[in-house]
């Protein structure tokens, strides 16, 4: 077999197709990134390297406030969802299966199953009524909505970490008369930390990227970066949008790399 060099797992055309897929996958993203550094206003003709569009975006007050708002919401949603998801993960793992646990799973994973446009519309209806009733128009609605749909993304890596954790260390701690709170803060939490950080990063990225729910929930003047970009569609596309996209992409890749490094340690 070796002399015929017959590899059983090789299927004709598959490798070529795969390479083409990778090229198609990356070509648009790379083009977008490259042309964000274009000196001219074209998205296809190269007129020399320049940071002009970054400068324009940076000096655009609408972009600046949208960026701040995006980061504020993402940070708040990431912290809230990670805390709540950690508690829920501690409540649903490493104990006997209890009545109603399926209900908890279904609720936690619900944002993954319902189409985003449906949740967006439901929140529009509900929050419109709440806005009228309370008069409150602030960022709270966006933070609540983002925190809710980030919960499953924070929950999954935390639960995975918990399930892979060794119980003996905690048993040892309580054998040595540590209170259950001491055991938790000194043993469980440090062991759980990589999962928590991974969950927080995922939640941050998911919140930062959200378009649809934000578009429907936001009050006037509450644009985030993605909804600002969506609004720019009506005008001619300039490399300014490319510059914003590239910055957003850069941030995502940094967070994801950190996420992978954190979750890889486990194995």
């Amino acid at each position: 077999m070796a002399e015929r060099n017959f590899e059983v797992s090789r299927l004709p055309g598959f490798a070529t197709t795969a390479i083409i897929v990778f090229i198609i996958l990356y070509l648009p993203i790379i083009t977008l990134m490259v042309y964000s550094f274009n000196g001219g206003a074209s998205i296809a003709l190269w007129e020399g390297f320049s940071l002009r569009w970054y400068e324009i975006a940076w000096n655009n007050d609408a972009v600046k406030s949208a960026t701040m708002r995006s980061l504020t919401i993402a940070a708040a949603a990431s912290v809230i969802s990670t805390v709540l998801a950690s508690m829920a993960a501690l409540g649903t793992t490493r104990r006997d299966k209890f009545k109603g646990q399926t209900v908890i799973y279904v609720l936690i994973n619900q944002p993954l199953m319902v189409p985003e446009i449906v949740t967006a519309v439901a929140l529009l209806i509900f929050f419109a009524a709440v806005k009228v009733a309370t008069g409150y128009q602030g960022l709270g609605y966006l933070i609540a909505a983002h925190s809710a749909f980030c919960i499953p993304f924070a929950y999954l890596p935390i639960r995975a970490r918990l399930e892979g954790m060794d119980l003996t260390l905690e048993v040892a701690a309580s054998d040595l008369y540590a209170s259950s709170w001491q055991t938790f803060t000194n043993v469980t939490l440090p062991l759980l930390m990589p999962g928590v950080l991974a969950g927080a990063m995922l939640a941050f990225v998911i919140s930062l990227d959200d378009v649809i729910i934000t578009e429907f929930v936001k009050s006037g003047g509450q644009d985030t970066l993605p909804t600002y970009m969506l609004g720019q569609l009506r005008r001619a596309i300039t490399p300014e949008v490319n510059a914003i996209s590239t910055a957003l992409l850069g941030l995502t890749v940094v967070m994801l790399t950190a996420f992978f490094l954190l979750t890889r340690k486990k194995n």
Partner: protein
Amino acid sequence: MSRAEDQQKKASARNGWLLSAPALALLIFAAAGPLLIMVAYSFMVKGDYGNVKWGFSWDGWVGILFERDIFDGTLRLASAHLVIFLRSVKLSLLTTIIVFGFGFPTAWFIATRNPRARAIWLFLITIPFWTNLLVRTFAIGEILRTEGLINTLLLRLGIIDAPLQMLYNEGAVLVGMAYVYLPLMVLPLFAAIEQFDMKLLEAAYDLYASRFKVLWHVILPIVRPGIIAGSILVFVPSLGAYVTPRVLGGGKNMMIGNFIELQFGQGRNWPLGAALSMTLLVIVSIALLFYVRAINRGAKGGGHG
């Protein structure tokens, strides 16, 4: 079971609920609960300037398929709505098929690399998966645009005289959705192929099976749960797509998601919008039930398929 054990079990369940309660409360407030309110809104009377008026009405649900004549009030089939539904289903199915056609070889390619290379290829698939959907839609849009890369290249090479209009039609939406949802197909397929026992291939080839026969009779049946999972993971968001048709389809090539939005904007028909959302939710739930069944079967069947 002893009394003490029984009590301990109860305490454990209580703690489980208490720890989960804050997350559940937020999810009910800002995700699941509003869905129930939406059900109620679908049965109310539409307000003159959006929102609803109190009172029971079937109009929202009837409006999905029928429209009332402005003059004599008779009902007739709303063909414009049907066009949108059919377009949504057609584009979602085509997206799923295209993405499978490209995704299966890709997943196979990744799964048959050595472990080190496999991790890198997998990472390369995962990056687009996590990057902003809007950014990716913009990116593909800029390639297809009149002044975009393809047209500029073709013009320069003298292949065409005038730029091709590739944006703002169904084809652009299809290309965009296939581009955006491809990783959703590759990842579950990869998971299924990774578990595939390559010795089965040796056995098949020893028995003089052709490559095609091996693919058709050995590989595809065994990785079927992965195929079903990937197809549903692509079909479901395609059917509910909003951003891609809005950015690449222009105003004319609406899908259900955009049609729902319209009812809350210019359409000012919240009950119809709510009823449409519920319909979409039911269709998606049915698809997800199949998904769960496929996953479970995959887990139980193990190597036997």
